Structure formats: C-alpha cells, structure tokens
C-alpha cells in the first residue's frame, strides 16, 4: 500500500480523500492556492503545499513536480481539474507516480463521446442517434446532410464535453449553422477542442447513473443507481439512491447494462455509467464518467462501501474488498448540494466569513464540507460548500431526515441555497417521487416568507429587542469577548510602554 498520496484538488473532495488516507495510515499531501488557504483540507492534511501556478490545481507540471519533491507514490485527482485527463495519467505513469483513477486508455475511450457510443451501440445497448461532424467548419450542405441522418430536433455537442456544457438544441434546419458556430466557439473555449457531433434530441425524463468499481484483477461491481434529474444550470441539486422512478425489473436491467458497458471499456477504478430515460421509459447510454463524483456519498450510504478507499486499494493493485453478492444495497439515501449562493438574489455567489457553522447531527446524517466556523468563503466559480447526505429505512424516512437536517444545519456569514432545498424536498411531486427532469423548469423558489400571525408577532418581538440591544451597544468599540484563540475567560493584556 502507498505511504504517501498527493491530493490534486481542493474543498470538500480534498477533505474527503484526506479522511480515507488517514484511516488507511497513508500520509496525505494537500495543495492549496492563496485563496484556498482557509479550506479545511489544508488544516487536515499531513502536508500542505502552496500552488503558484495560475492554473491552480490543474497545472500538471506543478502538481507532478510537488509529487516528486515530496515523494508521493500516488496522486488522487478528485473530480474536475486533472481527473479524466488521459495525458496527465500517462505522464504520471511515465514518472513512476500512480494515478488514482482509470488507466489513460480508459479515460480516452470514455471521453471520446462518439466512439464510446459506437462501442456501446455495437454491444446491443440503446444509445441516442448521432452523427459526426467531420469538420466543424463544414459548409451548410455538409451540415444539413449530417443533420438529416439524425433528424430534428437535434443537439449540437462537443465531442469532448460533459453533459450539457457547450451543447445547443436545434429545432429547425434554419438554426443549424448558427448553433454549430456558437457551439464550436464554446467547445474551443471550455475544452480547447472544437470537434462537434450531432445527436437526436431525446426529451429526457430522468438522468440515472450507476456507480461502478473495478479492480485490476477483473472484478467489477456496481453500487446501485443514482437519480440525478433535479438540475439547475447543468448542476445536480439533489440526488438520491435508489431512484423512485424505477421498478424492480427496470432496476435490474439498468444495473446489468451498466456492468456490461463498464466491461466493454475494460473499466478500472471508479466511475459512473450514465443513462437518460425517455418518456417511454427506455434507457439510453449517454456516457461513462471516469472519475469519482461529488454525489458518491449517496452510493456509499446505501452500499456501506467507502468508494475512496476502494479507489486507493484498486490503484495499489489490491482486489475489491467485496464481491457483488457481499454488497447489500439497503435503505434510501439522498444528497443535497449546499451552495454558497443566494436564492433570493438570482443565486449569485455569496462569499464571506462563516461566523457560525453548526453541522446537523444524529443517526445517518453526514456532511462533507471544507468549511468551518471562522473560515473565509471566497467568491469562486463553483459555489459548492457542503454535501449533506442522509439515509433512512425508506424514502419517507429519508425525506423527513433530510428536512430535519436542513432545519438543524446552521450557517451564518454567507447565504446558502439551503432554503431552496427545504422547498424542493417538501414539494408534492418531490415527496411523491414522481418528479422528472422537467420539474426544475416548472419549479419557482418561493421568495415570500411565511407570514402567519404568530410567526410575524414573534419576529417583530425579536427585531424590537435586537433593536434595543443595539442601542445599548451603541458605543465606539464592541467588547472583543469571543473567539480570540488567545483568550479564555479574560483578556490578558501586556502593558504598553509609553
């Protein structure tokens, strides 16, 4: 087993990986940028190295240089940044550092969307109808010819893109050329690759992922499916496992398909085989994610498997710790993505300092976060602050536990989307488990507050007392009584020299 792992990531996933490293007796090496120095992963790690590159955690040169300098035997890329970068995985291998993730060939195969669909289609699984755009700069006639193979409505997609990003829906031939142009620009911008393809638009009712684990000895298991149909701006807000949309027969079919597809790719380490479900209930393979995902905790809770531990074991050449038969999927788990963003204000990021941060507790409640009381939350691209994951015996218990956990989670200093989650999980369609991908399009966050008489009177009383207390506090300097690490009950001031 490795003695030292470098974690090329930040935030909650870095803290998550450090925890498992520590439990396995592995020294963890964290990286941090100047703005991330408050993140819990820096405090928790055994070593923490400052990054200087403007590419932050995505700078292969700097990450590898640090790994070599500190003697890390392996690198865990987390998600994003250097995850799913075949070139980086290859460089790691060349430099004698183990990349904790699928082998480069698997990453390449997974990221080549059309080739992946072709492979899966050939094996008899359902995939969307698609056609390559051999040249992104093709003339109108060539474009229309490719589109005719697919049929309208269609989606213009980046050959390297993840679900949704850079994609353009085209309802009518008139709009095709413009959609291709703008998709190309965006693909170049996001992925540095303007290779496109066309795909028949399927009105999806559900997005489902099946978590898989595979070792180097040919063992491959799944940990059940996750339902991820609640999206806002291509970001999953809530995930749950199992999916309320499947019956037992569909579920078995889905699991079998996922395992079969993962085998087609000679999959290794952990990943998710992703499907969309059309309105007729048919599964279509869409892609295979060759990395750990933010929402992996949901699968951990229903399966009892520590996915990060398995990732590290697999990378070290060890066999999976359980066979498919030994994995029992029990109970119902749900994941709410708590973002530092303001639902009352167009979900703008809400940076600030966490003055209070009290985690929910109790049975089967888990929070993975890089935050803590006193920590500064900088304005970042990804506002993910905490993964809140709960499990119950059944979906009703899981829902009531999530509601309780959201009530109990106290975050002051930044605004979060917890109020949005409170409304979502109490929505009748969500409670009934009948929601689909259209749910978020119809859902409106209710900005109005509950103005029942008692609540309003109580609130008025609170504000009145707060107002009077502030008047009492109207003095130039508020006494600095609390939270100074230096003091306990009394300040001790060395006297000054005049």
């Amino acid at each position, binding site marked *: 087993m490795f003695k030292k792992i470098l974690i090329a990531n930040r935030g909650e996933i870095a803290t998550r990986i450090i925890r498992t490293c520590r439990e396995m007796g592995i020294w963890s090496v964290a990286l941090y940028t100047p703005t991330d120095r408050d993140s819990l992963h820096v405090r928790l790690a055994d070593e923490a190295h400052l990054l200087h590159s403007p590419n932050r955690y995505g700078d292969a040169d700097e990450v590898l240089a640090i790994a070599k300098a500190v003697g890390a035997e392996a690198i865990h890329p987390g998600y994003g940044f250097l995850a799913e970068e075949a070139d980086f995985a290859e460089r790691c291998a060349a430099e004698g550092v183990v990349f904790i993730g699928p082998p480069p060939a698997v990453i390449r195969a997974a990221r080549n969307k059309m080739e992946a669909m072709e492979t899966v289609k050939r094996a008899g699984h359902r995939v969307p109808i698609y056609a390559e755009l051999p040249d992104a700069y093709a003339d109108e006639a060539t474009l229309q010819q490719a589109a005719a193979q697919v049929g309208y409505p269609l989606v213009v997609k980046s050959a390297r893109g993840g679900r949704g990003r850079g994609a353009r829906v085209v309802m009518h031939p008139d709009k095709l050329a413009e959609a291709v142009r703008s998709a190309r620009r965006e693909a170049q911008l996001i992925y540095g690759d303007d290779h496109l393809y066309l795909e028949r638009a399927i009105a999806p009712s559900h997005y489902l992922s099946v978590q898989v684990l595979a070792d180097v000895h040919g063992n491959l298991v799944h940990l059940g499916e996750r339902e991820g149909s609640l999206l806002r701006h291509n970001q999953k807000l809530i995930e749950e496992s199992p999916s309320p949309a499947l019956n037992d027969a569909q579920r078995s079919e889905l699991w079998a398909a996922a395992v079969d597809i993962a085998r087609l790719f000679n999959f290794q380490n952990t990943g998710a085989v992703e499907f969309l479900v059309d309105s007729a209930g048919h599964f279509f393979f869409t892609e295979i994610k060759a990395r750990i995902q933010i929402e992996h905790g949901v699968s951990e809770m229903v399966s009892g498997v520590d996915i990060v531990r398995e990732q590290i074991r697999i990378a070290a050449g060890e066999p999976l710790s359980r066979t498919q038969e030994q994995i029992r999927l029990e109970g119902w788990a749900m994941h709410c993505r708590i973002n530092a963003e303001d639902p009352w204000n167009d979900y703008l990021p809400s940076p600030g300092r966490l003055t209070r941060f009290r985690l929910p507790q109790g049975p089967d409640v888990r929070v993975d976060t890089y935050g803590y009381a006193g920590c500064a939350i900088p304005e970042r691209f990804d506002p993910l602050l905490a993964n809140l994951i709960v499990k119950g015996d059944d979906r009703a218990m899981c829902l009531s536990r999530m509601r309780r956990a959201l009530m109990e989670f*106290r975050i002051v200093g930044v605004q979060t989307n917890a109020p949005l989650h409170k409304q979502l999980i109490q929505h009748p369609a969500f409670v009934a488990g009948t929601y689909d991908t259209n749910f978020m399009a119809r859902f409106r966050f209710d900005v109005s507050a*509950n103005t029942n008489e008692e609540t309003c009177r109580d609130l008025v*009383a*609170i504000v009145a*007392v707060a*107002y*009077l207390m502030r008047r009492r*506090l109207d003095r130039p300097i508020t006494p600095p009584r*609390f939270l100074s690490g230096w003091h306990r009950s009394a300040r001790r001031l060395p006297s000054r020299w005049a």
Partner: protein
Amino acid sequence: MHKLTIMVENQPHEVEVTPNRTRPGEFTLFVDGHPLTVFVPDFDSPELVDWMIVDDRPYEFILSPDLRMAQIYSGRYDILVRDKEAGSARPAGGDGRVKAPIPGLITRVSVEPGQVVDVGQPLLVLEAMKMENEIRSPVRGVVHHLAVQPGQTVALGEVMVEIQ
C-alpha cells in the same frame, strides 16, 4: 417603555417594550396589543446573540447589520424599524450632530447636503483599525451640514454630519 413601529413584509406592527428587571435578558412586549415575553439567553454577551426565546418558542435568526432583513427557519423577511422616540422628538441625549465614534479616515460619503435621510440610512464610511465602519443616520431628517470628505481623517468625537 419604548414604542416602535416595525414593518414586516410591508405590514406595520406596533410594539411597546418594557425591560423586565427581575431576570436579566427578559423583556415584556406588546406586539399589536398581544403580550409577549422575550428571553435573550446570551444577554450578557451581546456579540453572541443569535437566538431568542419568544413565549417559550426558541428562534435562531440572522439579522442584517442594518436590521432591514431577518431570516428565521420559516423564511427571509423584509424589515423596517421606526423608532418613535428617535424619529419624532429629539432623543434625550442628542442634538443631530453625528460625531466620529472612533478616530479614523473617511473613505466614503454617501449623502449630500440638503438630502433627506431615513433612520439607518448610511451616511459615510469611517475606516479605523483596518476596518470599515459604516456610519448610519440614527434619525430621519435633512442633512444640514456635511463637515467631512473622503480622504480626510477625523478625531474622536469630531462632528462629521449634522442632521435636522
């Protein structure tokens, strides 16, 4: 006794507050005529106050610094406090001159002479000890005199703004 009008989501509520001397942190109020008892558990450590118990109902809350927004579990509320004493008659101790509570540097002035300002409206920003302190108007009135401008330092107690 202190009389206030507090708007919650644009609905006015009349409040009368009597501090209760028998138990520190306990207040007796009438809100729209309903008697309520408020207990402030952290009364001795005002900087910790983020919850109160109203008639045996505990509330954890977040209040914006300007008391214009309140958030409790059941939602986020627009708030406006009108202090009848401060707003109508001259407060006992004051004469409308806004003085520097700390020595520091004026970094921003948000009002102009002649402008009508409301209670709680920001007047200027005074930077001291590496912190920006927003100075707000304690009364409704007209900016009669503006004695400072950005970049200027002020001494403790120096009159910065006069409001009439």
